[in-house]
């Protein structure tokens, strides 16, 4: 395996998902997530597909988990903002380890005011629901954080959210 510093963040995430048997990847796309989504589609280990809404993507992953298959939902910050009811009523209420990965828009160079505002609702919502979340800012910490978060979510039967900071991904900047 290549040294962590020479690997991409998305390569690390895909490796950790494979190692933890997280096979189902549902998403509403985001530009920053593109290489991760493409990587999941390219590997037959994964069942990866888009949904019309993030709620749907979360429902599918919750259903799959109850039937024995692990999954993760990929989305952008604005997509996360559509999820509180599903998190509260399904993942939290039923104690389902719904894994979420959010590409963080709205900070560190955001050019869209709406994104900047909705971003501020994300962590308060996660905190209000008591959902474990970690923000990944450094490549050398990515593997540890993703791996341990998945294990804890599964072990404690609790949803968890991994936030991909622009510090890690480069984010999206106005062109």
């Amino acid at each position, binding site marked *: 395996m290549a040294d962590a510093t020479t690997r991409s963040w998305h390569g690390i995430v895909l490796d950790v998902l494979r190692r933890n048997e997280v096979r189902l990847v549902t998403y509403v796309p985001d530009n920053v997530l593109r290489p991760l989504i493409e990587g999941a589609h390219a590997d037959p280990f994964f069942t990866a597909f888009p949904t019309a809404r993030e709620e749907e993507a979360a429902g599918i992953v919750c*259903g*799959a988990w109850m039937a*024995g298959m692990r999954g993760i939902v990929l989305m952008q910050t604005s997509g996360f903002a559509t999820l509180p009811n599903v998190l509260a009523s399904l993942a939290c209420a039923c104690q389902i380890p719904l894994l979420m990965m959010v590409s963080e828009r709205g900070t560190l160079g955001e050019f869209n005011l709406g994104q900047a505002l909705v971003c501020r609702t994300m962590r308060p919502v996660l905190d209000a629901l008591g959902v474990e979340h970690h923000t990944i800012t450094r490549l050398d910490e990515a593997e540890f954080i993703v791996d341990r978060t998945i294990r804890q979510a599964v072990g404690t039967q609790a949803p968890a959210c991994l936030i991909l900071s622009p510090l890690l991904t480069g984010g999206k900047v106005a062109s």
Partner: protein
Amino acid sequence: MLRNTRVMNRFDLTRRLVAKLKDEAVVGGIGFSNFDLWASSAGRAENFYMLGSMGLAVPIALGVAIAQPRRKVFALEGDGSLLMQLGCLATVAARAPRNLAIVVWDNGVYAITGGQATPAAQAGTDIVAVARGAGIAQSAWASDEAEFEALAEQALAGDGPWLIAARIDAERPAKQTPRDPVLHRQRFMQGMGVREG
């Protein structure tokens, strides 16, 4: 098509469906859809009672169907709930799970919140036409109880995805599902063979 369909009863149809089942999974949508599922077959471990996530019976059932491709999965969803998450019909069509059947209880109203008409009822939206348009070719109205049973048999025997829509009356369910989400989840996982118990 819609005009010629009999107005049936959700509890009666749920009972008729459940009577045909062996190890198939059933996901009951919010409110009356899962209340009547509970009333018809409370002891069935293969039932999942979705308590609060309006519109998610079909996505949850799709997830189950993906995880266990050899098990047939039924989603029982109210028309108002499906209307809230119509995009999931395109997702189902795109995945084309052979083991998924969607049953839509169409009473034209949000019954549990007081019977307010849905916009679809006011507009005359035909949910079967919507489903076909979304790409679920095997979508049909059940014109009476016998046809509902025939469509259910077809869904059990053949490759899906299927969508069966039934017009239903305003009768309230005989029972309420206990509000214990963890219990339902745990039982369902046992029913799916994922947990011992």
